[in-house]
Structures are given as C-alpha cells and as structure tokens.
C-alpha cells in the first residue's frame, strides 16, 4: 500500500469541506493515506452543529460521507485539537500535505456602539446551545417577549424559526432539550428580524422563508417595502414572492406569535435601559436617512462569521485573512471551504470548492511542488499519546448508536453537550457513573 509515490494527506476538520475534500482526493488518489482530524469526539462539524435541529433531511448528507470511513479507507481521528494535542509543524512532519478545512467559528461583530451590552447575544452561541455543541455552556439565555435579530441570512432565519416554534413543533428533531425547555418557559411573542439590505440583495434563502409559512400559529408582518425591481435576479424575485406569501393578510394563521420583517434598515447603535443597563433599543436608519428606535427585549446578532477565525495562533493570520481562489497557503499547506473563500454558501458549494482544491493538489503533486517524503508515515507515525487519544470512526459509530438509543420521545437522537460524556460513550457505549444532565 505504502510506497514512495503514496502521498500522506492530513485534513483538519471533518465538516462538509473536509469530507468533500477527502472524497475528491480519494477518487483522484486511490493509494493515498488520508486522515481527517477533528477536535470533537464526533465527525461532520457544521452538519451536526450548524444545520438546524429541525432540518434532519439536510443532515442526511452524512450518509454519503460515512462511506469515506467505512469503505474507502479514510481514517477519522477525532478528539485531536490542532495546537493543543498536535502542532501544525508536528503534523507536517508526518504528512506530505496538510489541508485546513476548519471552517469559521467566530461570529462577526456589528461594529456598532452597544453591541457588547448585556442582553446582546451572538447567533453562533445560541445555535451551538440548540445543537448541544460541547463548547456551549450554561442555560439558553432569557430573551424576553420581543427579541430583535440583526441579520437576515440563513442563520438568522433558523433562529426565527426556533424562536417562533413551540415545543410540539420539534418532533423528529435532535434539538437540545435542556435549551428548548429553558426557552419554552418564556417564549417570545414578537420577533423582529432586521436586514440591512433591501429585499433584492438580502441574504436569506427563499426556500427557508417559504418554510416559515408552515407555522400556522405565526402572523408575519412588515411595515417596509418588500418589492424588488422588475429586473431583479431570480433569487431576489423568489425571495420577494416568498415574503409576499408570508405577509399576505389572507394567509391563514392565528396570532399567537408575530414575526416582524424589516428590510433596508441598518443598526446604528444599541442603547441600554438606564435602570437595568441591558440592551433595550436598537437605533435603526435607512438609506433615506429615516431613523427609527426599535424596542428590543434582547438583541441577537446574526451577521455572519469572521474570516481567519478558525485557527487563531496556529497559522500566521496574514496567510488566512484574505479570501482566495487558490487553496495553496504555503509549501505543503492548503485550505478549503469557509476558511479559504469566506463564510458564504451552503453545504453543496463546499463540494465544488473542494473539487478545485483537490485538482490543485493533484497538479502540485504531478509538478513536484508537493515533495513526497517516503519517511513520513501519516497517522502511524504520530506520537503514541496522540494515536491513543484519537476517537476512531468505529468509536464514533458507538457514540452514534448510543445517542440514537438514548433519544427521548419525538426525538431522533439525544446529543450530549459534554465532551467527556461523548468520549465515554464513544469508547464504551455507556456513561458508567456520569451524572445525568
């Protein structure tokens, strides 16, 4: 199997980008030794922790990625954090090339005064809580009766859907029930979504807007112009149609919850309530210079993710802070997915990105830009402590079965938001004496 012409490839990150890259490289290089690392005890990254808990069919993409590890000879090594368990230099000592597919985890800031006030939350933190991400901590924060979401991309729409739904709407999901119970104790009555862009150039996927219409207990309103120019692109027209359907007064609904859709308003400042010190008002302005103070019982910023945020301190920031069409970072180091091109696009877009990077790697192997060193042994050459620490795919399958077995009523699985619990389930299939939460 192993020969001087067999490249050893390390992919860091097992989300969609890492898995797509492993898939493309496996097709192109059937002999290559490929290891996919992840800092968590489970694979699939954003599919598991970013895709909403009530979008299970989107998560079914993992069925194709499983085959990498069960059939195609790609090794999974979970529970290995780059920079803590293994240095990048060390990884490069044992692999001919390292590809970063670490995504972006840091929420982008708003850069407006007041964005760090108590009562201002980041969408990433809330999403991780709802998905039982092991880095999430504490209860789901109290958002009050009238939270305001700043941003109208797909992450924002996921949050609108969560906030508008009631517990009975989560049947068939793998929502983190502790977080859901925290929220359901005091659910929002009016949710306002604020898009800086007008409808024509807004971010949200029309399909996700349409899906909101299934919530018959929700009334959708907007005081703003929701039309788009006649020559707008197809997505813009579809978005405008979806919004018109939602806000149509003839749409059958009860008014248990109201969702207010605002387009073309920029938040200029978040103001605190003078007595509580908590965020209470968002000062909005539009292109015409109109101003509007919007009352908020809490503010959620959902305006995307920070480029270069996935690998703080491991790779010189200046190498990653710019988007690039090329996956080449420096000799022996490549990148793909969001860490390469920025935080845009859905899961499938990472596939075409990964294919391009795989082509680039193949070309660099052929031209000698990547130099193969037969002394490198890939995973087998890593320090024993690292190999022992690694969660294998078989371990993950054990954890997967345990999660499914532990699923409560109306749930497809029960995720543990605790890394050590996950590890124990992965290694032995049971928690032994772990406390329940």
């Amino acid at each position, binding site marked *: 199997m192993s020969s001087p012409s067999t490249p050893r490839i390390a992919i860091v990150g097992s989300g969609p980008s890492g898995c797509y890259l492993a*898939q493309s490289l496996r097709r192109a290089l059937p002999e290559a030794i490929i290891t996919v690392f992840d800092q968590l005890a489970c694979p699939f990254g954003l599919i598991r922790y970013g895709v909403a808990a009530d979008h*299970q069919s989107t998560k079914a993409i993992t*069925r*194709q990625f499983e085959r990498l590890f069960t059939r195609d000879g790609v090794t999974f090594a979970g529970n290995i954090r780059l920079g803590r368990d293994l240095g990048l230099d060390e990884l490069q000592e044992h692999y001919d090339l390292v590809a970063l597919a670490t995504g972006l985890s840091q929420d982008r800031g708003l850069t407006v005064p007041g964005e760090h006030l108590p009562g201002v939350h980041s969408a990433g933190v809330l999403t991780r809580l709802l998905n039982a991400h092991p880095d999430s901590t504490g209860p789901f924060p109290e958002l009050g009766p009238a939270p305001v979401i700043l941003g109208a991309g797909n992450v924002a729409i996921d949050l609108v859907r969560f906030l508008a739904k009631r517990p009975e709407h989560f049947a068939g999901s793998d929502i983190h029930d502790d977080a859901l119970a925290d929220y359901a104790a005091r659910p929002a009555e009016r949710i306002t979504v604020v898009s800086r862009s007008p409808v024509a150039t807004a971010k949200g996927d029309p399909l996700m807007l349409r899906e909101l219409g299934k919530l018959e207990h929700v009334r959708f309103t907007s005081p703003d112009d929701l039309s788009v120019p006649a020559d707008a692109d197809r997505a813009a027209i*579809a978005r405008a149609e979806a919004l018109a359907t939602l806000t149509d007064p003839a749409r059958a609904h009860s008014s248990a919850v109201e969702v207010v859709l605002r387009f073309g308003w920029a938040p200029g400042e978040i103001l605190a309530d003078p007595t509580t010190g908590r965020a209470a008002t968002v000062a909005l302005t539009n292109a015409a210079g109109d101003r509007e103070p919007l009352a908020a019982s809490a503010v959620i910023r959902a305006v995307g993710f920070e480029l270069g945020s996935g690998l703080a301190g491991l790779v010189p920031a200046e190498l990653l802070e710019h988007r690039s069409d090329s996956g080449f970072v420096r000799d022996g180091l490549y990148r793909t997915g969001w860490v390469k091109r920025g935080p845009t696009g859905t899961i499938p877009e990472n596939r075409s990105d990964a294919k391009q990077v795989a082509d680039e790697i193949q070309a660099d192997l052929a031209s000698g830009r990547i130099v193969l060193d037969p002394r490198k042994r890939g995973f087998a050459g890593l320090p024993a402590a690292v190999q022992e620490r690694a969660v294998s795919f078989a371990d993950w399958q054990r954890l997967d079965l345990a999660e499914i077995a532990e699923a409560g009523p109306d749930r497809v699985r029960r995720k543990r938001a605790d890394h050590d619990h996950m590890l124990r389930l992965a290694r032995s299939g049971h928690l032994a004496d772990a406390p329940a939460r």
Partner: protein
Amino acid sequence: MHITVLYGTESGNSELIAEDLGQALAADHEVTVSDLQDYDPAQLAGNALTLIVCSTHGEGELPNTAIPFAEALDALQPDLSGLRYAMFGLGDTFYEETYSQGSELLDRRFTELGGTRIGEYGRHDASSWDLGSDVALEWLPGVIEAFEAAVVS
C-alpha cells in the same frame, strides 16, 4: 450492451449513486458514467440505454451540473425518438411542493423530444435517511428487465 449513466448533482449524492450504479452494471455491461455538465446531448440519440440520476435544487429547480446540459438540449432539440432512458430522481419530501421536481424537468424534455422512459421512475427521499445507492440498486434490476423486454418485443 453499453449503458450510459449520467448524473446532475449539487451535493454529490447523485454522483455517488451514479458511480454505484456504474459499478453494479460493470459486471455484465460496458458502462460510462458522466456528469451531465461534461456530456454533449448530441450523443444521447446514439446510446443503447441511458440512466439519469438527478437531484432537485432550491425551489424545484435543476441542480447546478444539469443546467448547462439542459440549456444545450434546449438549443439543439435533437430527435430522441430512439432514446430509451430510465430516470432516478432525488428530492426531499420535507419540501412537499417541489419534491423530486429537478429530475422531472429533464424527464419532460426527453419525453417531448420523443424519448421513451423504461421501467419505474426511481425516487430517493432525503427525509427517509435511506442511503440513495441502496434505493437505486434496488430499482436497477427492474429497469434492466424492462429494457430487455422492450428490446425483445
């Protein structure tokens, strides 16, 4: 017999299914597996049997890699009266209104140009969590049987 397997994909599921169909057929047949975006529709009429695996994108639209093919087909308008094809569509019943409609956009074109669909219309539903290839490999023998019956008669 030479069988052509074509796929249109967004997330890679159709590609994987097409590869698996190709592999299953390779024992008894000559097989070519190709992405629709790399396939010239002028070649269709010359195929003995063509299998199409195609997903659905967005609001019932064609997936990315099927779009250039559909455009070329529309421009060319070939006579497909000799074409025998089978269709396997992917979709998600979570989006009831548009379930599996991507493949139907190709199916309609083939029918309008005179093609004959063979066997059952295959479908995979992402909401089922079934592995697409498992469903497609169950569907395949019926298609081959129907094709052989059609050729004999």
